[in-house]
């Protein structure tokens, strides 16, 4: 029956909203609570100015002028690290779509039921999308609570947009992990490839910003971090082109996962 796997995945995994969401909420509250006043922010930026730029970029501080604004500071203190947390979640969830059950031999039972293979991927991906939204929403609540702990005026609309901006890269990573799992067949290999992809993307992005060179600039276009751009979103708002690109890549990866999963042997 349509939607059974979607509902079952929600039923079994809704607690993840609490666990991961709480982690983000604590991070968000902390990031908001430690935002200093404007003068302190400027002193802080001056201090950071003495640090080599590649070191700052390694830790996600892209634009020092952005750090002098509360929104820029929150982007650095929360969204960069929230994405790191959610990347771990994305890899784990990506494996839950098919790889965990295939490794455990459970997929034989599931696929002997009247469920087409594509529905296993699509319904679970849809359920995890909803769960991811829930996690980001709980994290946003943490940010909102944090606004009560700071004297600074922070645009709540920007905080909301910054939180929404977390979704495209995380969904893309879930799709990437699911695609690797359906292609590589072995869970360990899929985890290794996905983790390598994340690390490579990070360094490509970092190199692209740290060293201004035509090659690194070109390479950085292949990193999803480039399109995440949390500080740019907090200062200039959501970039529809970046969001669209990440979502298109997500759809392509899902289509590839479906294609491979439909055509291959299970559990061999």
């Amino acid at each position, binding site marked *: *029956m349509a939607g059974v*796997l979607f509902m079952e995945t929600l039923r079994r995994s809704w607690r993840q909203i609490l666990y991961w969401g709480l982690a983000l909420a604590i991070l968000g509250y902390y990031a908001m609570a430690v935002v200093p006043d404007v003068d302190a922010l400027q002193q802080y930026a001056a201090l950071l100015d003495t640090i080599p730029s590649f070191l700052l970029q390694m830790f996600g501080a892209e634009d020092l002028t952005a750090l002098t604004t509360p929104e820029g500071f929150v982007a650095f203190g929360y969204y960069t690290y929230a994405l790191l947390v959610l990347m771990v979640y994305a890899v784990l969830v990506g494996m839950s779509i098919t790889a965990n059950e295939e490794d455990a031999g459970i997929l034989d*039972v599931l696929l*002997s039921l*009247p*469920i*087409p293979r594509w529905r296993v991927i699509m319904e679970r991906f849809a359920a995890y999308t909803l769960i991811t939204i829930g996690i980001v929403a709980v994290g946003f609540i943490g940010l909102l609570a944090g606004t009560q702990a700071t004297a600074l005026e922070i645009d709540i609309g920007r905080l909301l947009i910054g939180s929404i901006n977390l979704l495209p890269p995380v969904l893309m990573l879930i799709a990437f992990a699911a695609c690797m799992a359906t292609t590589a067949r072995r869970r360990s290999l899929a985890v290794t490839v996905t983790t390598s992809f994340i690390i490579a993307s990070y360094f490509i992005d970092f190199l692209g910003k740290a060293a201004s060179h035509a090659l690194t600039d070109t390479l950085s276009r292949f990193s999803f971090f480039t399109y995440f751009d949390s500080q740019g979103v907090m200062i200039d708002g959501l970039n529809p082109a970046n969001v669209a690109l990440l979502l298109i890549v997500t759809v392509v990866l899902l289509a590839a996962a479906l294609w491979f999963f439909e055509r291959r*042997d299970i559990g061999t």
Partner: protein
Amino acid sequence: MAIIETENLSKVYTTGDGAVRALDNLNLSVQQGEIFGYLGPNGAGKTTTIRLFLDLIRPTTGRATIFGLDAQADSVALHRRIGFLPGELNLWRNLTGQEVVNFVGRVRGGYDAAYVRRLVERLQLDLKLRVRAYSSGNRRKLGLLVALMNQPELLILDEPTNGLDPLMQQTFNDLMREAQREGRTVFLSSHVLSEVQAICDRVAVLRAGRLQAVERISDLTRAEFRWVTVRLRDTDTARLDTALAAVPGVSDVTVNGDTIRLRLGGDFDPLLRALSDCYVVDLHVREPSLEEIFLTFYGDRTD
């Protein structure tokens, strides 16, 4: 009416060491309402065949049809009509037995709760436990329950009695006969010959991916040889041993005091003539077990 039909069904696995032909041009037909045994040692290709039937793996060549539908192209429609128990049963460890039943029921569009309750009683299963707490036998029973709960038209069971105690094996046999009485078809694989002998109508023997024979159980047990035990009085059995070995159809002659045991493959008359000068106290004829027939198939027809 054929429920399962295969046509030159083959499966080759490609591994790092090269290609392994797990199933080689299988041509098989299983009729409606029969309990069909699929026999073979480990690695013979039984599970590969079953996984091909369920579209878990794809054939290298050939095809399988079930209820006249293609096992690959119409797999979802077929799975509505098939109950499956895998050989190595793994289920969601954190779910209770009841949650597994409910989930499978929802996927299948519902189930008859009263029928499931009756099955649970007969299988003596506690559905409140989590799967991880089940013993291997109880997990097997849960797998059987899941396969049977929607009263499917076709049951495909891979080594179904693995881990079941003898009493539960009897219950399993009863359940299979009931399914057969209701016109349903059972395809079960096994390497335990006695269980196949107990319930199956026909049996296919598979070895190294090749079908060796398909026979009715009754025909197989009326096979080409019998074990004959003769107790004699006042006879030089040592001398007779040599004489009997020369009788057409007689082999494996063993002498133990006054008793001679031999394997007879053919008519009785030459043996009776060879014994005509002896005083026969007792003569016992035993049909070969399926295992012995099985070994004969392997010994005589392969390699």
